[in-house]
């Protein structure tokens, strides 16, 4: 988010500010450790998890524009510290108050306060960790339904993986791309002009496939839509 989609992160701060939230961005923050964890480097992941829990220690609520990072903190941090009671307690507490952005908005903001306009056809890709770890599927759709002029066309199997898988895409590039092309077919068949999701990893992977195939489908993060006028 920080390095590839900084604009989306800026949009998120604008969105939350407009809704009346006080925002802090702890500048010492780095990565939650998911790439190391997913590759089996639990020790490295644990160190980064401790760092994360410390740096965000005083934050009331964390809003995260990525389902997989949220899932890392909510589901896997407690697993990483299952043998370490003091850190486990911190991880469990944090798990209660970190939210993926669509979860946060639908839970803490009255829907009518969401005001945006995006007069295009869009289709929504359910990112795997959002969908199957965090049970997110209605939330982004509820938000999109609030956007003026927007028409949501569901693609076939919106919940099927895009093939990114973090470092999987580096270790097995052709496999990762082949899975991505299946996703692309579904996106294309929907006929939508834009594909929307809530995970920068998926967006990047889908974007790369679209570029290779020179398609005229655009890619946007949900947050970008919610600040569109």
């Amino acid at each position, binding site marked *: 988010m920080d*390095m590839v989609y900084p*604009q989306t992160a800026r949009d998120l701060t604008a969105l939350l500010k407009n809704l009346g939230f006080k925002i802090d961005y702890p500048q010492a923050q780095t990565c939650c450790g998911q790439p190391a964890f997913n*590759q089996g480097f639990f020790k490295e992941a644990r160190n980064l998890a401790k760092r994360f829990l410390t740096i965000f220690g005083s934050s009331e609520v964390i809003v995260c524009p990525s389902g997989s990072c949220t899932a890392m903190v909510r589901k896997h941090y407690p697993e990483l510290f299952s043998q370490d009671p003091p850190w486990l307690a911190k991880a469990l507490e944090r798990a209660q108050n970190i939210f993926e952005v669509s979860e946060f908005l639908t839970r803490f903001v009255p829907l009518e306060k969401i005001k945006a306009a995006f007069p295009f056809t869009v289709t929504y890709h359910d990112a*795997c*960790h959002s969908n*199957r770890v965090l049970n997110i599927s209605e939330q982004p759709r509820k938000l999109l339904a609030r956007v003026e002029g927007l028409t949501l066309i569901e693609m076939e199997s919106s919940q099927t993986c895009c093939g990114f*898988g973090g470092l999987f895409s580096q270790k097995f590039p052709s496999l990762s791309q082949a*899975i991505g092309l*299946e996703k692309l077919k579904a996106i294309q068949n929907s006929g939508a002009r834009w594909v929307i999701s809530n995970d920068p990893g998926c967006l990047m992977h889908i974007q790369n496939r679209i570029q290779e195939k020179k398609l005229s489908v655009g890619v946007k993060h949900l947050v970008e839509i919610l600040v569109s006028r």
Partner: protein
Amino acid sequence: MKTKTEQFKTLAEKALGNEALQEALARACGHIGRMRSNAFQNFPEGETLRDQAHRIKTGVMDNLEVYLQRLETSARRLGIKVHRSPDAADARQYILGLIRSRNISLVVKGKSMTTEEIGLNPELIKNQVEVWETDLGEFIVQLAEESPSHIIAPAIHKSQKEIAELFAKKLGVPWHDNAEDLTMVARKFLREKYFRAGMGISGINFAVAENGTLVIVENEGNGRLSTTFPPIHVAVMGIEKVIPGMKDLAVFLKILARSATGQKFSTYMSFLQGPGRTDEDDGPEELHLILLDNGRSKILADPELKPSLYCLRCGACLTACPVYRRIGGHAYGWVYSGPIGATLAPQYLGLLRAKDLPMASTLCGTCASVCPVRIPLPDLLLKLRQRIQEQGGMTYYEKAFIKVWSVAQNHPSGYRVLPVLARKGMKLFPGLFPKGIPLSEETFHQWWHDENPD
């Protein structure tokens, strides 16, 4: 089959380039996947039954030896001869011993992945025993001299055209261009084998500890014929297939076929309660039950990975997996493929020998979402990745990448330098950096820092 898990990358690459395979997989997996999801959509109690099934399996695995002894006792009471095989070689020897002592020259087989696991067919053929697979898919795969590429749809990788060619070539029959005619060819060819066979060998879906009932679930009737026609029936089961009682069976039967093929029930369900009795017209004279360990006790003793043993072998995780859907089963290089295969292979074959398999997953979680007994497959894959990593199973580059990366992530200054270095480095040494990551000119961090000077 010959184990080739070390060649995963090469085999997967080959599979991706095989257009006929891509077409066959897309069609079959798409179809079975839709059937499965429809079956559960119209079956609200399915989710509760899956929870129940998980609990039953957990209970069994926590007391496996107790249930196995109970099964042995009740099976013996029914006249079933029970044999425990610690490993594949012992199971093969036991079967071969029976064949020799009874002078058997022809064996028919009902579908059984467990006998694939122990490499039974090659052993029998080596010993001049004629063996015929009677499940249509297995029969096709046998004629093609291949191995099954899916747990319940062994010939899922083959198109109808390929099968027509195969039958014409191997069986000397005219070309048939529809599935029914092809099935009739196989049926006619195999029917006569059942009558001549001295032994039928099958797998088992469930073995009920409380009364010794062996349950076989199938769609073609070949399982019933192979287990009732020949004078001897040998059933081979992994020790994890035991369940406590008939009421547990009711839970599993409601979700097994739905998960596997999207059927409410399979066409045939056989409840075998011992060999044929004197007042019965059919049934074998002898029924042998082999309880196969072959590495299962080792998994059982591993609290983190124990749930790998809950598997019913329904194949739902294969059909649903985006990776399996693109490369099929043969690429995994072992008898079990897909997410469950990637979970079992490192445990059966050794972590390093199958090190690529757990890595070859996007961790998308579709497998767990369709598993009838809710095996947390992505979590198991992650644990295996950790162990493989600790045993030195990662490449030098992967290790170096994560080490450098995590040091940088541990220091805000290092972290801030990363994008700058990466932008330069990607141009100078493209091989060293992950591909397809379009770094932005200005990070959010920089922007925030400039906007909020303090």
